[in-house]
């Protein structure tokens, strides 16, 4: 336990320092050093996580996870918002892969379609509409990068410690194991006709929630129109700031 704490703690410190450095900080240098520190920190995390059993599975998982996390890091460290958005798209692709790897076929595809296809593209539209000249001064500076890096890294470290530490906790180990710990027993989730199962669940057990979600979409639509309709040109009475 203590060894785990020290390894994860060290990883957290390195991650915090690295994140503080890779964020946009004007003309200050050290981005490469930050990237190295982040990589070492992530490596320390990875060193403590258990393998999946076969090397092929491990390889696919690390590939997908690596692409996802690195793309995410690139999202927050690139200065131009358009680049950030594109890197975020790559991160979404990685996430979709991870979901597919879990057997969540529908979600994997839906993530690509909904996020990358709809939401991200809308964001890009807005970006290009509002900021056609590329980067603005405020994109070159971060607000409190060290504090933000420390907090984020601490959050990750604490969560990792919780996940790994709980597993090492003898009290937890005595609890009944997961229902499908072996390959022999076929999981319901991994069964054939995945979409049929998911749809069946969604429209039987969670029908009310689906209806509520539909209503929410409608309300959001109306709300968006209402908010945007309020926009007035500043000379016509809207308060100007900045």
């Amino acid at each position, binding site marked *: 336990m203590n060894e785990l704490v020290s390894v994860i703690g060290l990883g957290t410190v390195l991650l915090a320092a690295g994140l503080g450095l890779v964020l*946009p900080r*004007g*003309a200050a240098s050290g981005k490469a050093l930050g990237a190295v520190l982040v990589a070492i920190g992530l490596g320390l995390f990875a060193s403590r*996580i*258990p*393998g*999946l*059993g076969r090397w092929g599975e491990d390889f696919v998982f690390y590939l997908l*996870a690596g692409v*996802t996390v690195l793309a*995410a890091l690139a*999202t*927050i460290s690139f200065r131009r*918002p358009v680049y*950030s*958005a594109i890197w*975020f798209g790559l*991160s979404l692709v990685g*996430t979709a892969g*991870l979901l597919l790897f879990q057997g*969540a076929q*529908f*979600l994997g595809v*839906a*993530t690509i379609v*909904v*996020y990358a296809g709809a939401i991200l593209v*809308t964001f890009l539209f*807005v970006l290009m*509409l*509002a900021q056609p000249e590329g980067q*603005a*001064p*405020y994109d*070159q*500076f971060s*607000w409190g990068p060290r*504090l*933000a890096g420390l907090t*984020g890294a601490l*959050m*990750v470290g604490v969560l990792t410690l919780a*996940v790994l530490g709980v*597993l090492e906790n003898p009290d937890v180990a005595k609890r009944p*194991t*997961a*229902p*499908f*710990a072996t390959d022999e027993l076929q*999981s319901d*989730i991994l069964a054939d006709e995945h979409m049929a199962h*998911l749809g069946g*669940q969604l429209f039987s057990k969670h029908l009310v929630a689906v209806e509520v979600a539909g209503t929410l979409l409608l309300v*959001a639509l109306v709300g968006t129109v209402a*908010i*945007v309709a*309020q*926009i007035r040109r500043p000379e016509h009475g809207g*308060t*100007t700031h900045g």
Partner: protein
Amino acid sequence: MDEQALLTNYLIVGALLFGIGLVGFFSRRNMIVMFLCAEMMLQGVSVSLVAWGRYHNDWGGQILVIFILTVAACEAAIALAVVLTLFHQSGKLDIAVWQQLREDNQAAFVDRDPSALTPKPEAQWPKLVPAGIEPELDLQEVTHRSHL
């Protein structure tokens, strides 16, 4: 496949996505990027939920993620509307413009070192073959449109 190891790994990946999203949300000042980071946090949560759903052989995880997708779509729509409104008022996507919530005696956050800005390159407009009289171009107006 070791189900327990799979769960652990996915949870840690989810935590990483969430944490990186947090860092971005805290430090980036462009509102659009902040929303990207918020979406990234949602992705982290989605990964965790799917992993738990598989571990417990429960469809609830995936179904919850579907609802997260729905809510994220709504949130994106509203957020973009709000961002547009704010942009209309300030002409910037900078979140630091909106800090009126602070105490009276608290100094406003300003960029620490504006001189450290990289000098903005002159806008390089494509050279066209002159035809007729070239209109007088106000560079300021072109590069800094205060509103849409």
